[in-house]
């Protein structure tokens, strides 16, 4: 009996980091992340490689740790800026998913909304020759409006005809993908790259090859905006009447209606905001690093963002961190594979594991509270 006691106590003690309910929204994702790295380490070990080395390379590649050597004009700083550049659209896209989720809606059309807004901004501003000071804000504005319109359409279809948003967003994904690809092929194609023609530097949201201190770096102009927007979204959801209504609709539609909240308009509004955020993701993606659109392809980033939003507990600040982490693993994978000789796909495995474990969060929470009750029990009966 006493042996049994000790065993459970040990298990209980092992769980100390995630016992406190107040901190669980943070500790559980962190624990799932650690756990996924452990599992990935085992996989790497089985492949006969050194996991510590591999993870170190991963972080080196992402510009968190210094590499042994750098090519000309490159340094840890340039790597890190590339990381932020890749992270920027992911933050926007995950915020888009989170806002919709809070309203009880599942926006899986982020990719389509990104493509649409990226395309519209490209053809209106990208080839216009406008001055950078006009072009860049205009790109952001157009991205937001285009995405917002597309999101709003989804909300409106739901409100007016009660069509489920998952259906409409999937359909709109296809429509955007093929219609836009038609236009690119017919009007904007670059015969060499088989993509849309490159946009002007002035319209880009990434300053490419910016020379400073003998380095050539890519400066993601949208990054600061992404952080600011995340904070704004948090403020909107937690502190404003608009946020209250959106959350009320997401929490209990019948009660929201009874309270006098206009459920339909709030769903439309939430989808406009969500779409607008997806639009920002679109322009920072297509008019940032890439400066061009590949026809017939929807970026997987729009789907990854669902998982990133969940990992961040649909919480704007959580999303900044989860995007940061996922981007690190994504960005570092190339360097890891070249250095450690591990296939790049291992990075996807790690991301997959993190998402899998964090998806189990609710179960873990339940288990922990059960264990906690038992522990209290035993202490009482012992004393």
């Amino acid at each position, binding site marked *: 009996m006493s042996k049994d006691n000790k065993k459970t106590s040990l298990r209980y003690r092992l769980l100390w980091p995630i016992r406190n309910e107040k901190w669980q929204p943070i500790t559980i994702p962190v624990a799932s992340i650690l756990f996924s790295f452990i599992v990935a380490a085992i996989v790497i070990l089985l492949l006969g490689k050194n996991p510590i080395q591999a993870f170190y390379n991963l972080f080196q590649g992402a510009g968190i740790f210094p590499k042994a050597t750098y090519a000309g004009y490159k340094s840890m700083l340039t790597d890190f800026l590339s990381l932020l550049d890749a992270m920027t659209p992911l933050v926007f896209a995950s915020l888009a998913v989170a806002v919709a989720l809070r309203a009880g809606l599942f926006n899986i059309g982020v990719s389509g909304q990104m493509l649409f807004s990226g395309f519209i901004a490209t053809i209106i501003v990208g080839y216009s020759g406008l001055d950078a000071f006009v072009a860049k804000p205009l790109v952001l504005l157009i991205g937001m409006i285009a995405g917002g319109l597309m999101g709003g359409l989804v909300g409106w279809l739901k409100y007016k005809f009660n069509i489920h948003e998952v259906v409409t967003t999937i359909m709109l994904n296809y429509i955007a993908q093929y219609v836009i690809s038609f236009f690119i092929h017919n009007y904007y194609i670059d015969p060499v790259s088989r993509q849309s023609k490159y946009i002007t530097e002035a319209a880009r949201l990434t300053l490419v090859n910016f020379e400073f201190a003998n380095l050539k770096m890519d400066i993601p102009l949208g990054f600061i905006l992404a952080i600011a927007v995340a904070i704004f979204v948090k403020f909107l959801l937690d*502190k*404003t*009447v*608009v946020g*209250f209504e959106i959350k*009320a609709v997401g*929490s*209990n539609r*019948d*009660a*929201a*209606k*009874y*309270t*006098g*909240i*206009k459920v339909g308009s709030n769903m439309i509004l939430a989808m406009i905001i969500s779409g607008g955020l997806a639009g920002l993701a679109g322009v920072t993606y297509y008019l940032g690093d890439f400066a061009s659109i590949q026809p017939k392809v929807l970026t997987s980033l729009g789907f990854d963002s669902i998982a990133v939003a969940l990992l961040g507990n649909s919480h704007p600040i959580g999303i900044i961190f989860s995007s940061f982490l996922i981007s690190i693993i994504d960005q570092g994978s190339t360097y890891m594979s070249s250095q450690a000789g591990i296939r790049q796909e291992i990075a996807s495995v790690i991301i997959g594991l993190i998402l899998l474990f964090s998806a189990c969060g609710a179960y873990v929470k339940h288990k922990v509270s059960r264990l906690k*009750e*038992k522990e*209290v*029990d035993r202490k*009482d*009966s012992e004393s």
Partner: protein
Amino acid sequence: MSEYIVEMKHITKRFPGIVANDDVSIGIKKGEIFALLGENGAGKSTLMSMLSGMYEPDEGEIYIRGEKVQISSPNHAANLNIGMVHQHFKLVEDYTITENIILGIEPIKKFAGLFPYVGIRGANRKIEELSKKFGLEVDPTKKIADLTVSMQQRVEILKVLYREAEILIFDEPTAVLTPQEIDFLLAIIEGLRNSGKTIILITHKLEEIKRVADRCAVLNKGKLIDVLDVETTSVNLMAQLMVGREVNFESEKTPAQFKEEVLKVEQLTVKNEDGFEVVKDVSFTIHSGEIFAIAGVADNGQVEIADAIAGLIKASGGKIFLNGQDITNDSIRNRTESGISYIPEDRQKFGLFLDFDLSTNLGSKQYYKKPFSNKGILNKQEFDQFGTQLIEKYDIRSGQGIKTQVRSMSGGNQQKAIIAREIELQSPLMIFVQPTRGVDIGAIENIHRMMIEQRDQGKAILLVSLELDEIMNVADTIGVIYNGQLQKVASSDSLTTNEVGEYMMGAKHE
């Protein structure tokens, strides 16, 4: 072996901020109907949840048939032949009755000895047999979403019987039923006992205890006060023990003083989703200083009248005037602003955001205006202050005060929260639909007193209730509804309970 089939010894259960059960010991004999009585939040549901495996006690021991057990899950409870019919049903809306009943213990058959499938047909048959045996007629192939509340309850009962429960726990089974359905259910419960089952019955209605129970335990604030022999204890004593003071069953009431007309309903017609007229050509008025009650058997259109006045459903004909203003086509929000408070029938579906905390729920009808928000920015402090005030004033009990998640509150206290929120709106017209459902007798007395107080302050009150006693007790004017039509409108003094009953059944009309 002891004489008890269930024994709970020195049970203590704590939740954050509250001791829900404090050193409670009870023993239940095989084949008896054992009632649990206590105020809202006294810990009745919690105590029984430990028997049904939802929670485990922090301290104390449970013996079933003389053997010490640790009931760690509802499945484990089922293995011990314990089943609970919960206060708030736990059914999957889109599934059929059979699917709900066999969920988790599906009978697996093999097709051609190889491919497993769920033997629905066999299950259907078994359920039909069970329902015949215990008089709980249902059509096993129907979906839950299409059932009335009392039918859903039958499914819950069949669910535990299907799992071969010998010890059946009913948590406030009659709170959601009409008087006729209650009679029926109590007969079923007695039938179950007569077939040898042991019944634990949680209820706030003393007459039900008096009618069917053998013994009765009284809880107060988590502690066991006494276990009584029902036969030899008066209803008054039970009430007194439970509330800790003497209870007035009849509300004291000064004669009503009607002033100006507040609500005027003219030839109101309402259609339900299927286009069927559920309210037909109904007209009445309510004055300031008047409690107007609509009496009727359930589903005769009374809830739809309330919904139509509050704007939750559209009137298909007729007009509604509030203080002389036509509000027939106004939005819900505008009606609230023009002066309507509404306590809805279904508190969990409409009345509350279960995942929000108590202060947010208490402020949820006023969040959009000063002082709860200013220029679109919420003022959390105001919510907290307001919440703290209301908890005090309306005696809303919960574990962590205004920060309590409403889902974790006891059923009766959820109801009190809604009542507090709506009365505080100070609207000229207050609609109370089934306001005392699931509320303990002490609180019922309070709610009735508050209604009369509001009336005396010049409010117009529309009361919709299935309980004739309640209506006879507080109403100044009674409108009896049958089949969507008002059969009779008269001052309550001029009507006897019997007369109202006859109008309700449609046996008598003008």
